[in-house]
């Protein structure tokens, strides 16, 4: 891990509960570092399930589009990647900013646009939840 962030414990437990229930795994398996799509084997309907469960637990609504928005940061497709949809320097720099664990030097193959969601971890979702919770409270 290139960087560690302190995760808010209540938010982490909420995310772990939602992930475990949606994927039918033990909450202990849903560690902060685990990627939802890679390590935990989630599919898109699973992510929807996770987000609705999270909404029921916390009352905070996060849409799949919010996650996509975080990952791409409003950068247009053509500036985020090249014509083969391989994420370029602009895209990688943005990802390093929003995903603390992401380190481009660790990539074993070029990162494609489709692969970006695969970087998203339980910890990243926890940070997003915390951010949303404080935004709602403010």
């Amino acid at each position, binding site marked *: 891990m290139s960087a560690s962030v302190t995760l808010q414990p209540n938010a982490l437990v909420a995310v772990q509960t939602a992930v475990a229930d949606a994927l039918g795994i033990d909450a202990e398996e849903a560690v902060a570092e685990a990627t939802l799509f890679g390590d935990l084997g989630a599919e898109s309907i699973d992510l929807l399930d996770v987000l609705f469960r999270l909404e*029921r637990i916390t009352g905070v*609504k996060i849409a799949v589009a919010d996650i996509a928005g975080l990952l791409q940061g409003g950068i247009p497709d053509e500036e985020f990647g090249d014509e083969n949809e391989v994420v370029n320097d602009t895209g990688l720099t943005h990802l390093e900013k929003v995903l603390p664990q992401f380190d481009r030097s660790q990539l074993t193959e070029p990162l494609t646009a489709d692969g970006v969601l695969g970087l998203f971890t339980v910890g990243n979702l926890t940070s997003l939840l915390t951010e949303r919770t404080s935004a709602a409270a403010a």
Partner: protein
Amino acid sequence: MRQMKLKNSAALVTGASRGIGRAIALALAAQGAAVAVNYRSRAQDAHVVVKEIEAAGGRAVAVGADVSDPVAAAELVSRATDLLGGLNILVNNAGISDDALIHDAAPDAWWDVMKVNFGGAYHCTHAVLASFMAQGDASIVNISSAMGERGWIGQANYAASKGALNAFTRSAAVEVARFGVRVNAVLAGFTPTDLVSEVLRRDGGKGIKRQIPLRRFATVEQVAAAAVFLAGPDSGYTTGELLCVDGGFSAQLGIGRP
């Protein structure tokens, strides 16, 4: 006194100004649900249904919308939700027919029927889904027909629309089950309403009745009772089901007798 089964529920019934939809609205209200009574053009009829529910001590509102239009359907759902303060039951009942032999009909005679019978259910389902999935406990009931599973001369377009609705019911059910949303259908047999008055006119329906194992037509209340069952907690473990209320019609092989 018997316990009402839908006390904290709010339901939207499409096409509830007349016929089967009206009976469903009344039956849901009798179980304590607040009901949005949708109609397409007959506002007066819808208001009569609302008054009837109110007179019996229930809560109801009338909301006009053409469910074949996706924008209108979404507005219908959001208005119903606002007026009732929530929504956890959707009954897709609005339906039309346009009977003719395929040979005689215009080449696009399937489209209007499809747009209401299947499109309406798709649009309304789409519109309620985010809130139903977030609630984690909600029910969708599609009013379909035995015609969707078997052939009938002169109703190819109608049968196709109901076949689509039945297939949609199964697929939607498996897709949203994990979100606590159930999707089922009632496959009604012949039920005397405006919709089938033409079919039943010829000989008062005698020729058809003779082919139905129970030898009689359904009442709108019998179809409504099945819809209430599928909408409520008694069917809590049932999803993706196509429940026949057809007098044994679709259980029978051919004419069913020598």
